[in-house]
């Protein structure tokens, strides 16, 4: 099993959700996060004042899935989240040791 953590632009959430649904993935955890990568923050000018926008609002998606679903999911996710500009985000993939459904103690991929 693998865990995908993806940081994407907030306005891409609906598109990404739709793309994941197309490849048969419904379950995910969504969080509102703030941060920056190479995009860095930027300076915004308001009424002649400059102020720093250090951390930009982003969305973090977390998905755990069987190994054999990984490639198509990453393809769907990155395809939907891409604008081609700086700030599109990142996808991280981690190995997952175990999954347990709390309700009935199902384990492994059956618990996903």
């Amino acid at each position, binding site marked *: 099993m693998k865990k995908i953590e993806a940081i994407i632009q907030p306005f891409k959430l609906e598109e990404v959700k739709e793309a994941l649904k197309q490849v048969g993935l419904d379950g995910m955890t969504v969080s509102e*996060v703030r941060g920056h990568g190479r995009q860095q923050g930027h300076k915004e000018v308001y009424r002649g004042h400059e102020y720093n926008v250090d951390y930009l609002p982003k969305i973090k998606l977390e998905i755990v899935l069987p190994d054999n679903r990984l490639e198509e999911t990453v393809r769907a996710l990155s395809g939907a989240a891409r604008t081609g500009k700086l700030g599109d985000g990142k996808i991280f993939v981690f190995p997952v040791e175990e999954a347990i459904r709390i309700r009935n103690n199902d384990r492994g991929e059956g618990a996903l």
Partner: protein
Amino acid sequence: MMDRLEQIREQFLSTADGWAAVHARADAVDQVVAPRFESAFGSGAASGVALLAVGGYGRRQLFPCSDVDLLFLFERTASAEASRDSIAGFLRDLWDQGLRASHSVRTPSECAALAANNIELHISLLDRRLLTGDQALFQRLTERLTGFYSRERDTLLRGLAGLIRDRHAKFGDTIYHLEPHVKDAPGGLRDFHAACWLAQLAGGPAATPEQYWPEDSRGAPLEARRFLFALRCHLHYFNDRDNNILTFDHQERLAASTDPALWMRDYFRHARAIHHLAQRLVDETATPPHSLLTLFRDRQSRLSNADFAVTRGRLYLRRPETLETDPGLVLRVFEFVARHGVPLSPETERRIAGTAPAFRVHLDRARRVELDLWPSLAAILRLPHAYRALDAMRRTGLLATLLPEFQIIDCLVVRDFYHRYTVDEHSLRAIQTLQDLAGSADPLTARFAALLAETERPEVLFFALLLHDVGKGASAAEHVAASLDLAGPAMDRLQMPETDRETVRFLIRHHLEMSATMTQRDLADPAAVEAFAARVATIERLGKLTLMTYADIAAVNPDALTPWRKDLLWQLYVAAHNHLTRQMEADRVAAAQVPPQLGSTEAERRAIARFLDGVPTRYLRTHAPEQILEHFRLEETFRRNSVAIAVSRRQEFYELVVLASDRPFLFASIAGTLSSFAMNILKAEAFSNRAGMILDTFVFADPGRSFELNPTEIERFRVALDRVILGKLDVRDLLRRRPAPPAQRRPRLLPQISFDNQTSAHDTIFHVIAPDRPGLLYDLASTFSFQQCDIDVVLIDTEAYKAIDVFYVTCAGQKLETDQAELLCAELHQACCGAD
């Protein structure tokens, strides 16, 4: 035992009599508990221990799945220690009988020693009942407690009031939850019992809360008690555990064939009666004799005037009978609440609720004689405690009388995963959210607070918030359109000015748009920002829509407006603000853009098109058609006299419109003339058309009230301005005669001057932030004129003591060179410091 409990259940399901069911369960449990205790400890005095029922069980009110609260009373701690095993065995026995007991072991001295951090213990002992055991020991406890309650009465009353306040705060201080907790939420059963305890503490064991309730309305809390007892029994039987949340599913089930939303209104009516009862008891009994609160209330009592008395922090009418003869008093009451935040006394609230019919007649009469109701409502909305006033108006039914449109969302439950409150509560909370912005220490929130502080006519925004969701009462699916349909007649009845109505319509129509744009559009994409900015059209509307969005999200539930969302909202605001500011001077009106509703004949339309030719398009967006027509009509005077001046009063401010032929120093001269009459310029805008006619508008305050107290002064000003514009009088002479402004103590603010040659295609933009002072605008504008610069567009704004001015400037029709702009910055800086 089980059979008996099943019988009680069946009886309840057929009669829905919760009061009978809880008493029957308590009796049934008595039958189980007492014999088992006696077999474990012996009976009567021989046992050396008394078994007490406390809390709900002590009151003989045991809900189907509630715990059985027991207290083992021993004479001495040592005997309690020795009985540990017997107690454990006894409790196991009860568990085997299916009874969940929670117990405590105490001596009479422990019960009668004040435990400041365990007020709940003392409260639970108010409802003590001897089940079995040593009666003499119980008697000794009662004697000690009588002395204890009398000695510690005030401490306990204050402690209990504190517990009530803390519990209410956990529920956002409102009864209006979509899925209420029927025990702990405000207006729940706990409030009813708290009222009983307050009454007992204040008036002795036999006292009941009804004694503190007006005789003619004692039925309401008792009926509510009946309703809530039955409701909690239903929930326990259905959930088969002590779960007291009235979920959407339960609402549907209990409403049966009725509309669940209507059924919930019944719930809120009862919860309101119980909440009032508890509130009243807190007020009547738990006022500390000497405390900061008392000092504060004493100070508040100095607010009393000819109409109202403020006593113990509550507002009373001096002559309640005048409510019948002077219905205007009702609105004055709410204005007083909105100004000072003093809540109505229950007495006043009841009396005002009783005047609703008379008030309705008054409103009808006011409409017939075209009395302006809007100014009265606007005055309430503008004040710092408007939320409190609106809440009191809602409770007394006056809000529904004034705005029947609000009635359809009264206590309305619209099922929604995110919303926590009923629709009416959400709308009022949205207003409260904005009023609470001031003074926030969080830098992100402070930005929105600053935006509100500089918002013109915030009452229009608050009014839009009041009505933005009324459509949910008509059509949950298309509520925006339905809210717009309902807001129209409301604004007609209030005879609101057309410009305000337009703003309200705009805000309601677009109230969901900003929140959707910020999460669904790329804010770094200029096209997305441009499309949004085009819909908003003006900076003024943008500010109001931003605040409306902020309030609307924040009032959904306490966690909805995360810093993340605030950040996104602010980013969209800044992006749209910058977009609207930058395009300001670029677009000019062409004949084809003139709105068709301007002008009744073809000839007039042509004349208007000529008048508007070359004026920045921003002018069309910031002025209503009737204002544009007023300006157009002034043009005739301008043609005849080479100058046209109009001064009009707009509520607390004045507006000056000047049409003249452009010449150097013209803008500065007008600003200087206003300053020489000691007027305080709050806003100014300069426009010009292709024919070289300038149209300058100034909004100014008259701090010395010279125009108001002396009407000929306006004429004197007009004549002086006319002569200044025509070059017959030097504004510097006027300024020399100007009375010295009073010295003011203000926080020190250093002027900040910057220029921007990038964002505008044709102009250099100067931003000036400086401490405001009389004559500042004249000095700044003159500085540009001395450098042979033309001011194309000027935006003057004043935020508290701070002037925030933006000038779009050219020199000989071109942008300024960098060194020239830098020189100007230095001179503007000098001008800002000139008067210091």
